[in-house]
């Protein structure tokens, strides 16, 4: 009787070990939705009440199961390609005319340049690198796309 119970218990333990590793509970943490829209580029959307995307953040992915990158620099070419794919002209509308469509601001060691389209604003935020001449050297790290007529939750 006891040996049967023991073998049953051992079998159960063996079965449990095949179910896989126990995941720790992450319920106390805020979850963040992210999609890898191009190799190594993460897109994090925010939503309006009606479920439509109201804002997108783009940044480099640094951790991969097979490697780690320590370069958070997102080039303007990478931003442009992702922007074209995620928010095509039919979605973003035409670029607004005049200098008003290109505001730029510098605060602390960050520089932000923006381009205004009819339906969205593309904002590129970068680090300001040291320079001695009459110029600003930037290293973009994040792009933010905001829809003008959608309020985020």
């Amino acid at each position: 009787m006891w040996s049967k119970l023991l073998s049953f218990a051992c079998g159960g333990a063996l079965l449990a070990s095949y179910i896989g590793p126990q995941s720790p509970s992450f319920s106390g943490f805020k979850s963040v939705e992210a999609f890898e829209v191009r190799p190594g580029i993460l897109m994090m959307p925010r939503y309006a009440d009606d479920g439509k995307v109201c804002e997108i953040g783009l940044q480099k992915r640094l951790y991969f199961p097979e490697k780690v990158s320590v370069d958070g620099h997102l080039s303007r070419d990478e931003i442009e390609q992702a922007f074209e794919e995620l928010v095509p002209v039919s979605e973003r509308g035409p670029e607004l005319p005049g200098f008003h469509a290109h505001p730029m601001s510098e605060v602390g060691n960050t520089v932000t340049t923006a381009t205004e389209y009819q339906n969205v604003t593309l904002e590129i935020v970068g680090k300001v690198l040291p320079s001695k001449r009459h110029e600003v050297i930037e290293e973009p790290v994040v792009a933010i796309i905001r829809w003008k007529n959608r309020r985020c939750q």
Partner: protein
Amino acid sequence: MTSPAATLREQPSSIPHRISGKERDTESGNDYFLARYYSSAMGRFLSPDWSAKQDPVPYARLDNPQTLNLYAYLRNNPLAGVDADGHCPPGQDCSKVQVKVTVEQKPKFTKNVPLKDKDGNVVKGPNGKPVEKDTGIHGKLAGTVTVNGTPAAGVKLTESNAVTTVIDGTNTNPHVREGEGTSPNGQYNDDIGYGFATSGKADNANIIDQLSTEKLTITDTQTLTMAFPSGGTCSATSTRILTNVGSDGNASSHYTLTTTQPVVTPNQ
């Protein structure tokens, strides 16, 4: 809640030296820190900190309540440094830290300032046009971190700038920007400015006209976090304002840049 010191925990292995560089007792699983044993399973020391010099609460500092916990590893902030001998190092005393900020360059209009990438290439807009050249208003601030009046060498600085830009009464897209750097001599510089990418002379005239007639106020509340090589972190908060709104409430082409002096507080 998990103790921050629990981040020192590791899976059992036969390697006798751990992340802390200390020897692990293979029977008990405790780490030998010379003055005391540390339990990686509990995330705390097994005995209270002590001092050869008679002291009711050894290594305590009134400006940091974490120093009152005699069982904690590095004031429950294991990333702040390394515990060399099992006695909590005092860390930087923030009351001896001073941050002074001055306006290094008064705001002035600048035209056609090229925006370049780190390889020196002029940055282009999303469609390859226009070439990003900035015309606008810019000022510069310079800050110095000192400890007992001496520039703080090797201090790691992290800036968090909470920015509001108000144009003719409309608050446009308030945001927070963060960045970090290491200062070899405790000195740092900050720019503050607003402008537009320009396509030429006509744009420049219009941009300067707009920035002279619209009421523009940029308020940057900056929190500077200073991590000292000796361990411990302090914060300093100041507010900088760039504006062309005069005492009469009207806009003009005359911009002022003012800053409050940073108030230094310990990071808990």
